């Protein structure tokens, strides 16, 4: 990457053009998720709202004006609640959104806050019946005496209306904060994970869930580890993985036992004794775990690195990518201002050849697993005029050789963090949440996934 012409077509950062800057001024975006076709993009925010964007169909007249994303629907998913027993507020912030695979004309998604998961149905209405016998056009009941003949109501086209309705509410199953939800490949069940437990639900049954993982110690004094993320295998409906605050991954098989406390595989990288510090454990805590689309690999994110694991090798990761190693010498300050606890997410591209994750200063990083090249890009209004090509950024160590446009570690803005990113399932389109702004970038030159 860098300034030279990029010969490899796979990750041509120069092709990424900012499509639109969708500003959701009111609130900070807390989750971003494409649906299975990439036609819809959902975002959740701290205010409990969900905004769904839809991609416009490609226009034949302008081949390069590939579909842009426009707002499709907005609704309030969760409201703030008050737990009277503990005298505490339950935040309405949407922690995760997961789409269900589409089975009919309607779309379904699961959204969750700290305590409650909801299933929403998103459907379109573009026709309405007209010509009722008993009601007039405004819906008022007609005076029977005025009805002289019968008519058959007909469906007439109307302006498109998107209706969102809550279909299921899965409540009261979590004592701790829900951090992940994952839909199973059987399309019937899904799981929800909180800090200490994972529950298995059936999508149609809201009054019951099965506990499949419980790491709460008998004596809470002994608590030293929590669950940080969990996901089902994309193809094998019996397998799922969960990550912990100690940097371990556990692959569990639901066929083995009803309670999957005993893992089938434990993925853990042995600690490097020379790099040990008081912050070793904190920076090893896994903030996100994602299966590859193939189901063969796992992508994990901890504070400073992103790692790709092979499901067949538990002893160490296959690949380790340094996201922002220049922060290693600043861990104490980052601990002091709590930034060290930031949970960054990670994403695969559709062909599992490129991984992406966010960083500070509104930077996000992409790593090409094949060419081993990486790039740092910035999501900001100043540097992203529509149709402009993103310029790669570079962070240099303080006092190091500095090129023009480089930014020094000390000038990084730690309040501008990109925690949530998503990659279109088939194309080179990415969605980046920068605080309360959503950026959608498209690689126009390389729309096909390689």
């Amino acid at each position: 990457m860098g300034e030279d012409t990029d010969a490899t077509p796979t990750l041509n950062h120069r092709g990424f053009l900012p499509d639109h800057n969708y500003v959701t001024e009111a609130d900070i975006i807390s989750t971003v998720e494409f649906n299975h076709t990439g036609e819809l993009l959902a975002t959740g925010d701290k205010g409990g709202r969900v905004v769904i964007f839809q991609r416009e169909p490609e226009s034949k007249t302008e081949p390069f004006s590939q579909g842009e994303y426009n707002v499709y629907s907005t609704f309030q998913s969760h409201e703030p609640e008050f737990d009277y027993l503990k005298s505490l507020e339950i935040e309405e912030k949407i922690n995760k959104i997961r789409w269900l695979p589409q089975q009919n004309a309607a779309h379904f998604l699961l959204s969750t806050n700290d305590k409650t998961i909801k299933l929403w149905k998103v459907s379109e209405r573009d026709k309405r019946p007209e010509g009722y016998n008993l009601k007039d056009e405004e819906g008022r009941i007609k005076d029977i005496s005025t009805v002289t003949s019968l008519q058959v109501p007909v469906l007439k086209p109307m302006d498109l209306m998107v209706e969102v309705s809550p279909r299921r509410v899965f409540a009261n199953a979590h004592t701790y904060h829900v951090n992940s939800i994952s839909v199973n490949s059987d399309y019937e069940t899904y799981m929800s994970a909180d800090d200490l437990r994972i529950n298995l639900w059936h999508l149609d049954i809201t009054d019951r869930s099965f506990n499949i993982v419980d790491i709460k110690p008998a004596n809470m004094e002994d608590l030293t580890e929590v669950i940080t993320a969990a996901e089902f295998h994309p193809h094998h409906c019996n397998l799922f993985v969960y990550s912990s605050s100690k940097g371990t991954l556990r692959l569990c098989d639901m066929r083995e036992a009803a309670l999957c406390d005993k893992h089938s595989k434990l993925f853990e990288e042995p600690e490097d004794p020379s790099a040990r510090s008081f912050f070793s454990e904190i920076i090893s805590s896994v903030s996100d775990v994602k299966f590859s689309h193939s189901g063969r690999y796992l992508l994990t994110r901890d504070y400073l690195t992103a790692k790709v694991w092979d499901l067949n090798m538990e002893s160490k990761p296959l690949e380790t990518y340094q996201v922002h190693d220049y922060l290693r010498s600043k861990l104490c300050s980052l601990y002091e201002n709590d930034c060290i606890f930031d949970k960054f997410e990670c994403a695969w591209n559709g062909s599992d050849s490129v991984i992406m994750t966010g960083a500070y200063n509104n930077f996000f990083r992409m790593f090409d697993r094949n060419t081993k090249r990486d790039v740092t890009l910035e999501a900001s209004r100043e540097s992203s005029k529509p149709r402009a090509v993103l310029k790669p950024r570079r962070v240099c160590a303080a006092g190091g050789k500095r090129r023009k446009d480089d930014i020094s570690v000390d000038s990084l803005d730690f309040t501008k963090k990109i925690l949530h990113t998503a990659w279109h399932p088939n194309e080179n389109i990415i969605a980046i949440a920068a605080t309360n702004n959503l950026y959608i970038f498209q690689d126009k030159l390389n729309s096909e996934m390689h």
Partner: protein
Amino acid sequence: MFPKGTKRKFSDSGEEQVSSGDQSPVAASVAARTMSSSYSLQRQSLLDMSLIKLQLCHMLVEPNLCRSVLIANTVRQIQEEMTQDGTWQIMTQALAAAQCPADRLVATEVLCRQTDAAAQAGQSPKPFSVVGLEEGYHSEEVVMEGDVETEVTMSTLSPVSPQLSSASYLAGPFGMGPCWEEDEEEGECEEDEEEDSEECVSEGEEADQDHLSADSRTGEQVFGTFEIKHPAPPQDPVLGELFSDVDPSYYDLDTVLTGMQSTPKMGPYDLLESLSSHGPTALSSSASCRSDLNELDHIMEIIVGS
């Protein structure tokens, strides 16, 4: 990041005794210098910062369990290291020496359980536990007057023997967590607390008998103590109102970790008092708590009398 240097500045063999828990202040300071002073200062400031982080949870919403666990693990790690270095014993005993004897009754189930355990176990400090003891909380109750539906009693203990100092040193902070409630709003309570801290025991009846505050008077109670003023105090209408919805689930450890109630407000002053006594870096390390600390600084000065 923290170079683990144990550069000894004094190579006399006489200094060897230091690590075994010599109680003289001279030996204490020598021990502190046997390892690289910058490392131990850094470590100390990290410890202080961590403890403050655990204390100052945001009480409006349930605190983040992952963050709390990670901080607690860090504290535990430091504690273990300091124990191995022998600085742990020295620090707690130095604090013991510095404190005036307690007239106030000090109570903690934490202490109670560890009394039995540690009395047999001797010197080995109980590893810092994230949650301050579930059983402790179950049997620990608070005397509340009047309008509280559930009436509970706090068990009291006389000050424990010195060898338990390390055991209780850290048990408190996490357990003290629940008591940290909106400092900004509870102005009156703060004042009450301040007065209580200043005066001695007998005034204890005043105001916030419902408050739990860390009492670092006796050495062993550096962190792990809850203080109860007895006998039951006269009604304070404000406090009565505040605590009217308290219930025993407050003492359930799940509640402690995942949701603190808006009840007893812990005095931060005592904790900071103890912090200040063993390092100038204690208060300077936490930028995030600076606004709270400025306020507390002033009060602390009055308490400590510096």
